[in-house]
């Protein structure tokens, strides 16, 4: 018997374990719940030497499966890909830029899922869990509606697991994300419509075909994979929770699942209890959740997305209601930023910390800057920004930002001439001083 089961988030009815995401009684979403008493025994109270203690987790391989007890995996499941356990590190230069003070230097962290394997976004985490269940439920075909990263992840994991994949995407998706799905042999269906329309279509198709739609009938299992971001943040901070988390929002699920992860760690005694503030980040061109937070509404008014942040372009977020609750209940806030601000922040993150993120990461960084300026996040507080995707997938948004340099002949004189023309006057003077100094010291270049 499993140590987890599906339960309705609203009426509480139990649905066991099956490929389903809504409660037939009240139409509300289902969520996985666990036998926390049994898990608490595995942590081992007192000396903390149980099979699921901090010490035993530390002995496990560095991937998201080290938290398997808190994931809805089929009995005996053996993972075939080392997903997750992405780096968490301080971002002192970015901290100074965003907060305007050096006081934040040691307190701002980046959780970098731009390097999550195998497809360079945090979606690898959710798909890994969803496909474990897809196989257990006997599906031979998996599917999803996607704004790109999920498409890549489902296609790659399906290839690895020997499953067929049908991927539904809006037709205007970034070319790199389409190619990054095609390459795994998935069947890509381009829909002439926005993500919300693709999504609605998939709900209808899921009604008719016996396929494992990771974000429809496998959604309760799939979304649990997001918790591993929260588990890793806590462990990588030395088994403590941060003061603030800034998280991009599309469907609104990730922010709620990081909160669930922290709550579970507290419940099991793996971290000390702490009130963590959750901050949501959206693009102004698609900001139904941040609009609701700012206007004090608990309900979502759907929007027609218009933003370069296509991975966040969900105008009718399925978990919007719960994201609002998470944010408000934690004392956090939500912000949104314009497309030019997104591009500036992609550049800022790259130039300050050497991380090339996709548009969603630009949204997170830009919103974090606003939150520092509003004093909603303070420099002395430990703050984690969730960078969820890789910039190599959305290079099209930077088209025209950088000019194409004219080529020069492979001659030193050509380069010196080029250098003179390229450097600012002040740089030229410094360069000349440097050359003179090195010649005087006899070290040459």
């Amino acid at each position, binding site marked *: 018997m499993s140590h987890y089961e599906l339960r309705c988030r609203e009426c509480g009815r139990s649905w066991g374990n099956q490929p389903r*995401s*809504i409660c*037939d*009684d*009240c*139409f*509300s*979403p289902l969520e996985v719940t666990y036998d926390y008493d049994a898990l608490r025994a595995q942590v081992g109270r007192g000396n903390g030497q149980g099979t699921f203690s901090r010490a035993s987790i530390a002995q496990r391989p560095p991937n998201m499966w080290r938290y398997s007890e808190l994931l809805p995996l089929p009995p005996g499941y053996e993972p075939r890909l080392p997903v997750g356990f992405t780096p968490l590190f301080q971002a002192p230069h970015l901290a100074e830029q965003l907060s305007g003070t050096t006081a934040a230097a040691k307190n701002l962290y980046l959780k970098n899922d731009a390097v999550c394997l195998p497809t360079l976004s*945090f*979606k690898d985490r*959710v798909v890994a869990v969803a496909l474990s269940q897809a196989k257990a439920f006997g599906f031979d075909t998996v599917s999803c*509606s*996607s*704004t790109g990263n*999920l498409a890549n992840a489902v296609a790659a994991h399906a290839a690895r697991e020997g499953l067929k994949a049908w991927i539904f995407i809006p037709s205007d998706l970034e070319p790199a994300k389409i190619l990054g799905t095609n390459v795994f042999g998935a069947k890509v269906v381009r829909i002439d419509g926005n*993500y*919300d*329309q693709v*999504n*609605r279509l*998939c*709900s*209808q198709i*899921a*009604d008719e075909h016996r396929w494992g*739609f990771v*974000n*429809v009938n496998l*959604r309760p299992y*799939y*979304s649990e*994979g*997001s918790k591993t971001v929260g588990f890793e943040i806590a462990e990588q901070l030395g088994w403590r929770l941060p003061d603030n988390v800034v*998280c*991009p*929002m*599309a*469907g*609104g*699920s*990730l922010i709620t*699942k990081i909160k669930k992860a922290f709550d579970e760690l507290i419940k099991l005694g793996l971290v000390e209890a702490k009130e963590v503030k959750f901050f949501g980040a959206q693009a102004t061109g698609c900001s139904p959740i941040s609009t609701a937070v700012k206007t004090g509404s608990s*309900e979502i*008014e*759907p929007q*027609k997305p218009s933003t370069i942040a296509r*991975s*966040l372009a*969900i105008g*009718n*977020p*399925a*978990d919007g*209601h719960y994201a609002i609750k998470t944010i408000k209940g934690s004392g956090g806030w939500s912000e949104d930023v314009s497309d030019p601000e997104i591009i500036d922040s992609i550049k800022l993150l790259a130039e300050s910390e050497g991380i090339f993120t996709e548009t*969603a990461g630009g949204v997170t960084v830009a919103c974090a800057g606003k939150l520092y300026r509003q004093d909603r996040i303070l420099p002395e507080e430990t703050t984690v920004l969730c960078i*969820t995707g890789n910039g190599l997938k959305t290079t099209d948004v930077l088209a025209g930002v950088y000019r194409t340099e004219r080529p020069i002949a492979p001659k030193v004189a050509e380069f010196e001439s080029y250098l003179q023309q390229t450097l600012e006057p002040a740089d030229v003077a410094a360069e000349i001083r440097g050359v003179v100094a090195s010649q005087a010291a006899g070290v040459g270049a």
Partner: protein
Amino acid sequence: MPITVQIPTALRRHTAGVGSITCAASNLGELFSVLDEKFPDLKPHLRDDKGQIRRFLNIYVNEEDIRFLGGQGYSFQEGDEVLLVPSIAGGAV
């Protein structure tokens, strides 16, 4: 002024397996009255105790979310196809 209403699988156990009906409702209020009369068991699954449409039920008219068409104030046109869809799918971010 007939319109067609598609009922998702999840709700068909309350409609004796009926997946689609045609009726002459002119707005959402009238449509719900028709459904109440035809399928009394369905009512509590579409609306909460206060009579409000359940939060996680999305209603589409010819593939457009009815909230973009004026919501409860929208007047159905002849031949409209109405879809009842649970708000279940979506990105994970």
